[in-house]
């Protein structure tokens, strides 16, 4: 297939997801390399949900052979291949899902590979691990933390599941919040807005224009009137806001009989009073970004995110007079086309001017860091995730498009700091005590299953098997697991009697990997990986527990 034809075809194939993360997000995904450790059902389901949307490539590390039990719950294994390399069989069947994706495997125990050649893992965008004993998890996570490579650990255990995400620091520009507030600046109109609104005079308009004046302009005008009447102050409380709404209501045209006409734009103005009186402010998440030492102290190796953040911070503290660069978009509203477009242009122009200031500041900062002139390349040909430290110099360039995107999303910037596995487990820094405290208040809290999974790992460490795997072990393992649980809690300075029911249920499960639970986790985990890879949407921080019994879940930071 020719290059152009191929690209058109991919656009058709990926159409439904391109509408979510855009061409640049897709580009980042297609440049990503994912490592899966252990091709269990959970593992292959995660990969399936990365391969279908077009992840660049994957590598499976798995030293085991396919068993009858494996084939029973795994869609990507074949009963005719029992006894063969699980890594190889899974790779072959997964590759059938998408001809754009390359994949290969290492038939080797992950623990041995980690021992022999830990650098093997260093080229991946993200490593996903399933079915790892605790001791291997510690070695793996320690290595990846040092190399700043994100790790995701996923487990399906009976009707319970967990996902742990580790990424040292993850920055998000396009968080795409579901309910974003508009950036209208009615509390502090910029000159262009004032000029435009002043050029319109409601009192001289005929009905047609009057009824099609954008509500933004109406609120601006009436705010002016109100402020004159109240010593320059805007409506402050519930009472005043109601009076303000009545004031606007009085502006509705009346017919010859004095009956108010139907003017939808005035209705919209009144409905938007509360929202437009919310003062323009900088969200605390963004304030924290500005105060972060990485923003305050730029270094030559600072990531573009921090350089951009610093430029915006400098904007806020100078020309911006305490406000972020204007987003530049307005919602739709009842209005004639001409004046809506004019108003839209007013916002766009102001946003462009402010983004240009930021772009110039970015140049200055780059030069002061000794980075020289950035090569102006378009977003598409650069398409690398900002978070991938393994991609070389091209990520150092910051284009005008990058600056515009950053400014448009200035209110939505997020930085997530993750605690390491080491911090999670070390009694000096562990938060497991907090968790126990919460559970004491309500054993409906799904976090309790995290503790049980930790207890099960302790059981494995002591007995080299999971509790209740064979029918005749179930009963006998209950007291053993209970002891492990008590020891575990004791290690963290906790004494708590978790109801025997939970211990019993864990033994009932016998480390069963139920396909539908594996598949649920496969979906959630894959999307978290996509968030890390594309840098879009906000990943969870840092442990997700799923309860398939009640179809409930909880996220905790451990």
């Amino acid at each position, binding site marked *: 297939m020719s290059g152009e034809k191929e690209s058109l075809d991919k656009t058709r*194939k990926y*159409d*439904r*997801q391109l*509408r*979510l993360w855009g061409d640049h997000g897709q580009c980042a995904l297609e440049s990503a390399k994912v490592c899966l450790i252990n091709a269990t059902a959970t593992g292959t*389901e995660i990969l*399936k949900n990365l391969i*279908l*949307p077009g992840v660049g490539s994957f590598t499976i590390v798995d030293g085991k052979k396919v*068993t*009858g*039990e494996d*084939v*029973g*719950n795994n*869609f990507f294994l074949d*009963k005719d291949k029992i006894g063969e390399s699980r890594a190889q069989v899974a790779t072959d069947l997964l590759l059938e899902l*998408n001809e754009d994706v390359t994949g290969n495997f290492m038939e080797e125990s992950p623990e041995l590979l980690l021992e022999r050649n830990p650098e093997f893992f260093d080229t991946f965008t993200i490593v996903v691990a399933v079915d790892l004993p605790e001791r291997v998890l510690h070695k793996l996570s320690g290595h990846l933390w040092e190399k700043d490579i994100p790790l995701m650990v996923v487990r399906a255990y009976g*009707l319970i599941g967990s996902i742990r995400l580790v990424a040292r620091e993850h920055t998000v520009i396009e968080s*795409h*919040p*579901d309910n974003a507030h508009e950036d209208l600046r009615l509390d502090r109109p910029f000159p262009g807005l004032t000029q435009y609104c002043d050029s319109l005079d409601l009192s001289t308009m005929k009905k047609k224009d009057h009824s*099609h004046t954008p509500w933004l302009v109406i609120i601006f005008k009436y705010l002016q009137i109100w402020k004159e009447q109240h010593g320059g102050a805007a409506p402050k409380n519930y009472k005043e806001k109601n009076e303000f709404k009545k004031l606007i209501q009085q502006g509705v045209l009346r017919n010859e009989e004095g009956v108010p006409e139907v003017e939808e734009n005035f209705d919209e103005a009144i409905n938007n009073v509360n929202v437009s009186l919310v003062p323009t402010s900088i969200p605390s998440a963004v304030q924290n970004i500005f105060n972060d030492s990485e923003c305050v102290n730029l270094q030559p190796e600072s990531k573009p995110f921090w350089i951009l953040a610093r430029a915006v911070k400098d904007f806020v503290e100078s020309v911006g007079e305490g406000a972020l660069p204007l987003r530049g978009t307005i919602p*739709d509203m009842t*209005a*004639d*086309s*001409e004046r*809506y*477009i004019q108003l839209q242009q007013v916002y766009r122009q102001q946003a462009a001017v402010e983004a240009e200031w930021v772009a110039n500041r970015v140049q200055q900062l780059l030069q002061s860091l000794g980075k020289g002139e950035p090569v102006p390349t378009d977003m598409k040909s650069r398409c690398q995730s900002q978070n991938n430290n393994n991609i070389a110099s091209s990520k150092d360039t910051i284009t005008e498009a990058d600056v515009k995107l950053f400014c448009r999303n200035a209110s939505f910037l997020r930085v997530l700091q993750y605690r390491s596995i080491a911090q999670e487990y070390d009694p000096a820094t562990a938060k497991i005590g907090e968790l126990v405290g919460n559970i004491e208040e309500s054993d409906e809290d799904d976090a309790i299953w995290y503790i049980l999974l930790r207890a099960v790992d302790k059981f494995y460490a002591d007995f080299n098997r999971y509790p209740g795997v064979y029918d005749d072990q179930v009963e006998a393992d209950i007291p053993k697991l209970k002891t492990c649980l008590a020891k575990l809690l004791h290690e963290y300075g906790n004494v708590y009697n978790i109801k*025997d*029911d939970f211990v*019993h*249920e864990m033994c*009932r*499960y*016998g480390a*069963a990997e*139920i*396909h*539908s*639970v594996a*598949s*649920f986790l*496969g*979906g*959630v985990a*894959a*999307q*978290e990986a*996509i968030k890390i890879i594309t840098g879009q*949407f906000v990943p*969870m921080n840092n442990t997700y527990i799923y309860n398939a*019994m*009640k*179809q*409930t*879940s909880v*996220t905790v930071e451990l």
Partner: protein
Amino acid sequence: MALDPVDWHGRWNHIKKLLERGGPFAHPDFEASPETLGFILESCKILVIGAGGLGCELLKDLALLGFRKIDVIDMDTIDVSNLNRQFLFRRSDVGKPKAECAAAFVNARVPGCEVTPHYAKIQDFDSSFYRQFHILVCGLDSIVARRWINGMLISLLNYEDGMVDQQSIIPMVDGGTEGFKGNGRVILPGMTACVECTLELYPPQVNFPMCTIAHTPRLPEHCIEYARVLLWPQEKPFGEEVNIDGDDPQHIKWIFEKSLERAREYQITGVTYRLTQGVVKRIIPAVASTNAVISAACATEVFKLATSCCPPLNNYVNFNDTEGVYTYTFEIERKEDCPVCSQVPQPLNFSEDSKLQEIIDYLTESTTYQMKSPGITTMIDGKNRTLYMQTIQSIRQRTKENLKKSLQELGLTHGQEIYVADPTTPNALVFKLNFTTDMEHK
């Protein structure tokens, strides 16, 4: 239990742990036994509705949970844009019926599984078909279809002394997704909230006002709707009676170019081919991950309902992974006067002078009924009389003059039973006409 020749050693080890071992969280009726696995493998009949984003996942999940007697219905054929998530299909399958391809793939991959495909609409089957299944699970993308199948299951219920006969209940598990959002629910017809009880969960689709499209366009979407709704019927670019086919690139190209012209006239930016297609086809963004999540939750519920290994979801879960991962689980209550499952007669409160058209408008616009194209019949002097029906051209022509007549003129009396047919329900809904002195509509 003897090993089925198609099985192999250890095949069902994982699920046997849930079926052959009791536990404190199992359903109170649960009895650990090897027979439950036998029931799933040999007898339990499941109907999967939809073989698309949710359906493919459901078939895989159910097959690997041991279900073998699975029927799947889907009226669509495979499109390239399905391939990013409907993983049972390959490029060479484009154009083929989804149900057939999906069934063939699963049957080949999971030995012993017998998925029977039906390349058809759900309305092509009657109650005798649906009655044979133990559990229904839906992966539909249409609210009308959901309401129809819901109505079908309710119509299968038998009542004895006002109580539902448990044997006549066919549980339905229903899933839906949109981008990064999804939901799943368990419906026990006659016992728990049905689809119709919660119609307000599905607010009617908002369209752009016609006057905006015609006179004051502001957004690129307005320009596209202008080309689609106004220009196409006027210019008939591909011939008389040729309707817009969203899958025909020529059609989309024409609309795109006309939209651009409109946009240029008003200096509106943002009209793209992708946006045009999205608006014309009402495209909902979709990814593999959300479909995997919701289907898996639904499959787990089917497994629980079939085996009692654990109590089922009670009864609705919402999912959203735009920011972090969020679920919200709660129990939706039944509507006491639900038009479909409550057996409470539905009143139609109108004055004798009201026109028939007003009843039609009420049925389509009310959030309670949200009907699509209701047809009204009644009994007058012992004979069945069609007052208005719009779905059959000849009958519509014959009865449309009735719309302007008053209820009194049409010979209707207070307390009269009115039967309303609609695509949203397999059987007519019964209303009671209630003449009021004022215009007291609910």
